[in-house]
């Protein structure tokens, strides 16, 4: 379907564009064709209206003769032939119109005068058609670039979605294999404890499994994920790992992106406690204030520890997800001072309506 005919708005603009052309034709007919202004206008405007539609047909030869892939002779032949045919048809229409008009008194003799103007009219028709050809090539180019842009944007969106989903669903293999090794140790020294750890690890894995799909979960659910994670780590690290929490009860039902806190706690364990010979603490504080959720997580660390070989994607991941989801409305700050590392996050608490919208959009994207 022709792009101009698919939208009424475009058609109106296109036809408005023909008004000056009709004006010019009126001028030609009146000044060189010997018609009165009134006669010239009465002939030119209907003819131009008709020709506007005839010229839309140039779309198809243009589509079939792409500029960059057609030989010059073929290009010239197609469009010149098109112009001649279109203009000839136009002349026939012009003659019928004039014959009809010449019946009335004001237009008497117009047919004789116009037959002298036929070459002029034919030339104008050819030029106007070629103008339409040029216009259609511009239209094609615009359409192509718009499509390319849309494709790039779509690809970018899909890539980011996929990336975010992959990042969200990630269970640190180091954590998994070390935990299994601890279970293996406990099976002979403390079988009940080995069983307990199996169950805790299973609980944690089960909770993370479904989360990648959900756009958001209540903070309380995220906290139970954090607790499941810490329960496993507590067996591995024993007294070396100390966790302190101060969670505002009013914040527990706020909706947050899943796996917002757990990666931060994991980061605090891996880069903090795990590097300290005597262990250390992690402090997590969450407050609800003025429509914002304010989260602070602080841990001790050894500034002279060897660089962790698996460089944490945890922090970067959380920051990127916050930026993507709340552009300009969330903040993320990570600071190290002495032997303390602190991450402070604030994000808007979404209203239920906004929440439903986010859910719907991401469902649509997944499907």
């Amino acid at each position, binding site marked *: 379907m022709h792009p101009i005919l698919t939208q009424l708005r475009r058609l109106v603009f296109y036809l408005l564009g023909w008004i000056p052309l009709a004006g010019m034709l009126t001028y030609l007919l009146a000044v060189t064709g010997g018609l009165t202004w009134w006669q010239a206008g009465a002939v030119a405007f209907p003819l131009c209206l008709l020709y506007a539609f005839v010229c839309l047909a140039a779309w198809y030869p243009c589509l079939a003769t792409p500029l960059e892939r057609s030989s010059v002779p073929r290009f010239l032949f197609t469009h010149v032939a098109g112009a001649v045919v279109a203009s000839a048809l136009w002349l026939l229409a012009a003659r019928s119109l004039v014959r009809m008009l010449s019946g009335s008194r004001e237009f008497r003799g117009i047919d004789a005068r116009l037959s002298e103007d036929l070459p002029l009219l034919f030339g104008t028709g050819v030029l106007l058609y070629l103008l339409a050809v040029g216009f259609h090539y511009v239209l094609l180019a615009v359409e192509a670039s718009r499509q390319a842009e849309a494709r790039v944007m779509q690809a970018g969106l899909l890539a980011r979605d996929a990336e975010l989903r992959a990042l969200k669903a990630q269970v640190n293999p180091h954590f998994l294999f070390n935990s299994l090794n601890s279970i*293996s*140790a406990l099976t002979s020294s403390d079988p009940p404890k080995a069983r307990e750890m199996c169950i805790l690890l299973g609980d944690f894995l089960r909770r993370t499994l479904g989360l990648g799909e959900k756009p958001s979960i209540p903070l309380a659910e995220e906290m139970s994920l954090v607790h499941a994670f810490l329960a496993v780590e507590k067996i591995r690290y024993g007294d070396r790992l100390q966790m302190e929490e101060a969670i505002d009860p009013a914040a527990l039902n706020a909706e947050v992106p899943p796996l917002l806190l757990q990666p931060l706690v994991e980061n605090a364990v891996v880069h903090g406690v795990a590097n300290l010979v005597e262990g250390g603490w992690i402090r997590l504080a969450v407050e609800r204030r003025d429509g914002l959720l304010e989260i602070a997580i602080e841990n001790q660390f050894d500034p002279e520890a060897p660089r962790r070989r698996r460089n944490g994607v945890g922090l970067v991941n959380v920051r990127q997800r916050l930026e993507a989801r709340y552009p300009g409305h969330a903040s993320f700050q990570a600071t190290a001072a002495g032997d303390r590392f602190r991450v402070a996050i604030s994000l808007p608490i979404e209203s239920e309506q906004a929440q439903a919208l986010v859910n719907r959009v991401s469902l649509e994207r997944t499907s």
Partner: protein
Amino acid sequence: MTLPEGHRIRTIIVDDEDLARQVLREFLSAHSEIEIVAECANGFEAVKSVTERKPDLVFLDIQMPKLDGFEVLELIGAGPAVIFVTAYDTFAIRAFEVHAVDYLLKPISAPRFEAALERAKERLSGKLPAPPLPALDLAAAARPPQQYLDRIPVRDGASVFIIPVAKLDYAEAQDDYVALASQGKKHLKQQTISSLETSLDPSRFLRIHRSYIVNLERVAKIEPYGKDSYVAVLSTGAQLPVSRAGHARLRAFLDR
């Protein structure tokens, strides 16, 4: 190294997690020829223990407080047979394969453990060739791509000293050693200057001479010195010779 008949294999277990050490202890307890002489929970302890107790065999975890397993290996040098233990580290595992280094994956399987122990014993008794572990090459191969050294551990007797590369002024080749100048002191380390050069970030450190690598942030000025040669004057006041090729590289860098 050849073990005399009836000699017990003196073994050290290094891992920061108690439960991980426990698995190894349990597996080892089935072998009467093994004597566990120490267990260490961090890198410093490991270097100290190995230096003092001179074990035949070390089980070495990679991620630990203070020093990682590669740094420990670098500092204990070519003494004991080493079996690395790791949970998940794709780069390290590739390096172990390339350099034919024994390693175990957590959770540790008993058959794999036995096989690794058997191989270690053959090396110790001389049935298998026991080339000294190329600690620095191994560490370099195990480093994730595009990652350079951020610190250099050096050893003085049983104690360990860490030089963050930001505090390294320059390095000077001295036979099989490099002298590392940092904060007014010089530390000797057994390493070739070329090997050190490849582990340092080329945008921060430059080989200005056959025997010198300089920290570019420390270069205050370059002065001509005789015909065709130059000296680099550092902000610390030290003066280092610059070869002609080194001068070209230095100029290219400073003009950028």
